[in-house]
């Protein structure tokens, strides 16, 4: 039993932290926000040090690491609210490597930073990503895909998108070239300036690009949920650090804000929520890499990520007073990221509902 990072994992954590603190400083983030929300220089730098291939097999130029390592990278990104589609591209490429090994060229391109891939998993309405609505119909060598996907991360900048779909009543994943005929992308504005797009499909793909393996969608969703939760953990850390610095220096009524118990207690609550998230994210990442059925651990971490992050960023915002909402102060980005990510693949209540079903079923 050892909950400390391995030496290799520690190296990833430090490398990522170094890179983001050098290249994702507030001024730069602002510049990118005002452009298209994708920092290509940072992306290339991540590729150059091998972090984009972190979880790809060595055959594709990757390091063959897993979720615990990816969590370190994602967490460092969240801490710096750095505008790159890390989670989307790395988790999608992991699924491609696992299920579509023939796509070696695409994998190499994602590892060297020349192409971005993503996955379209969210659904309209109650947003239940476990039950896809895009219909896939196999017709010989070709598969017809019809349907829509709302708010797909990184879609406007991605070369390929892995779409969750339903074929013969069972979930599947379909790899789609975003430039293909019958693929319509409507770019969206988001409050945190992250590039997203609505995807409309009325197109055909080669049947060799369809994954019907049992559990493939679940596996991808687990990875996306936990990598996203790790980003949220970093977002919380950043928010708490900003808030602690603010209340330690800002004076009111002749003493620093932190000398008021109401302030300390709220900051401590944010700290506890962050620590609960840290523990559950690491646990779930390890369970994905090593456990039998990580479902309950993943959903628990996703719950803490949605529920806890919202509490933490609201507290950090509140402790900043009016400054918190001024776009010239950096803390508001943590707030917007926390809110954006919290709803991406279902809210806290949705995670609880699924978990409730899972544990009640397992128990009986």
């Amino acid at each position: 039993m050892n909950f400390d990072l391995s030496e290799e994992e520690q190296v990833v954590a430090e490398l990522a932290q170094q890179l983001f603190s050098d290249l994702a400083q507030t001024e730069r983030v602002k510049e990118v926000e005002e452009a298209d929300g994708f920092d290509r220089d940072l992306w290339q730098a991540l590729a150059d040090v091998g972090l984009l291939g972190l979880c790809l097999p060595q055959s594709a130029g990757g390091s063959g690491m897993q979720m615990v390592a990816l969590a370190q990278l994602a967490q460092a990104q969240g801490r710096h609210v750095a505008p790159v589609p890390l989670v989307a591209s790395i988790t999608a490429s992991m699924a491609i490597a696992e299920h579509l090994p023939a796509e070696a060229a695409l994998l190499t391109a994602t590892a060297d930073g020349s192409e971005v891939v993503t996955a379209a998993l969210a659904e309209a309405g109650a947003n239940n990503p476990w039950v896809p609505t895009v219909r896939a119909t196999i017709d010989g060598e070709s598969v017809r895909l019809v349907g829509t996907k709302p708010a797909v991360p990184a879609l406007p900048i991605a070369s390929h998108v892995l779409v969750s779909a339903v074929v013969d009543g069972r979930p599947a994943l379909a790899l789609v070239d975003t430039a293909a005929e019958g693929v319509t992308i409507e770019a969206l504005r988001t409050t945190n300036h992250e590039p997203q797009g609505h995807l409309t499909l009325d197109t055909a793909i080669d049947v060799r690009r369809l994954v019907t393996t049992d559990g493939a969608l679940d596996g991808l969703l687990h990875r996306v949920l936990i990598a996203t939760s790790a980003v949220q953990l970093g977002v919380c850390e950043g928010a708490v650090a900003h808030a602690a610095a603010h209340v330690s220096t800002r004076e009111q009524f002749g003493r620093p804000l932190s000398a008021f118990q109401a302030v300390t207690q709220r900051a401590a609550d944010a700290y506890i929520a962050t620590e609960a998230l840290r523990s559950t994210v690491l646990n779930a990442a390890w369970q994905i890499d090593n456990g039998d059925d990580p479902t309950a651990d993943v959903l628990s971490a996703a719950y803490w990520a949605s529920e806890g992050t919202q509490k933490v960023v609201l507290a950090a915002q509140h402790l900043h007073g009016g400054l918190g909402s001024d776009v010239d102060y950096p803390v508001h980005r943590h707030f917007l990221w926390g809110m954006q990510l919290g709803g991406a693949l279902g809210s806290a209540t949705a995670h609880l509902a699924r978990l409730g079903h899972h544990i009640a079923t397992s128990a009986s």
Partner: protein
Amino acid sequence: MDIGDSPEEAAFRAQARTWLEAHATRRSDASRPLPLDEHVPAALAWQAKLHKHGWAGLSWPEAFGGRGMSSVMSTIFNEEMAQFEQTLGPLTVSLGMVAPTLMAHGSPDQQRHIASMLRGEQLWCQLFSEPGAGSDLAALSTRAVLDGDTWIVNGQKVWTSLGQFAQYGILLARTNPDVPKHKGITYFIVDMADPGIEVRPLVQMTGHAHFNETFLTDVRIPAENVVGDVNDGWSVARTTLTSERSSIAGGGAGWSVETLIELAQHTGRANDPIIRQQLAQAHCRSVALTAMGYRVRTAASRKRMPGREMLTMKLAYANHWVATMETAMTLLGGNAMLAGDDAIAEERWQPAFLNQYAIRLGGGTDEVQKNIMGELGLGLPREPSTDRGIAWKDLPT
């Protein structure tokens, strides 16, 4: 106890409704708030119309151009008006904060502004908060120095709502730094057209600029613009702040539960038991706010100061706002954070969610309010203050 309208009240309500039907536009699903630069002139024009037809200043004393009715009557009118598109939102500072302050502390000359506000001719803003003085408002450091019969003011203010549109401002500045902080502040009326005043919009997360920073450089204010006595501005400001709290609390039940139920229906979630639980909670909060409102109004109509009720209601309102927004965000799901034209019902939910800090901070933070409530409601001794009796200039900075 009788919550219903008395016969006289019912008659007044009917009369108000009839007039509104004839002169205003009933709210509908298609109703959308106006952008700020259209909302301000529209609100002033609506106020002018209300005045022309005798519906302005219903509970204000006749001496100030009001109708001298009970505050219950003006609440009845506001309840009816809330069902129409026309609003007086941008005039909150003018009508809800400046006018009551001038009635209580203004000179006869200053009180002449009240009639102009009533006629919809003036928009006012508030120049109180400073970058270095938030909850601890009395620590403000904008200085005013007397030069003959003119005060010369230098400093910086922040969170000036609608400062870019206002003709006049109410301003707190330090006129004596050698006494404890509350005792050396003076309350001024300032003409926003003065060349020394620069108003810079503060862009918020929503992308809007409701608030501003205001820079004051050698602003010249005539001595007759002092409200109350020199160095006694804090007691004048208390009237303004109490009125501010009332107007936030009095914002009514705010986000109506009906709107939330509609959103649940629109997103196909109205039958989800968890969502339904949250809708029911919203209803419970709204019933409590409505009933608290009865108590506030009863107290006001009996000329009792509804201080505690108001504090409670302000906090309950902030809780309601935040919890309602959380439910709305859950209902909007992945689309909750789409911005601008891509947002679903953008003008309603998302900015309201992002703006929750304004409800929590405006008129004093939750924490400050709860401390006051501990004193007023529960009779708890005050927390020891570390700066009592120390001259402002000697405070640590």
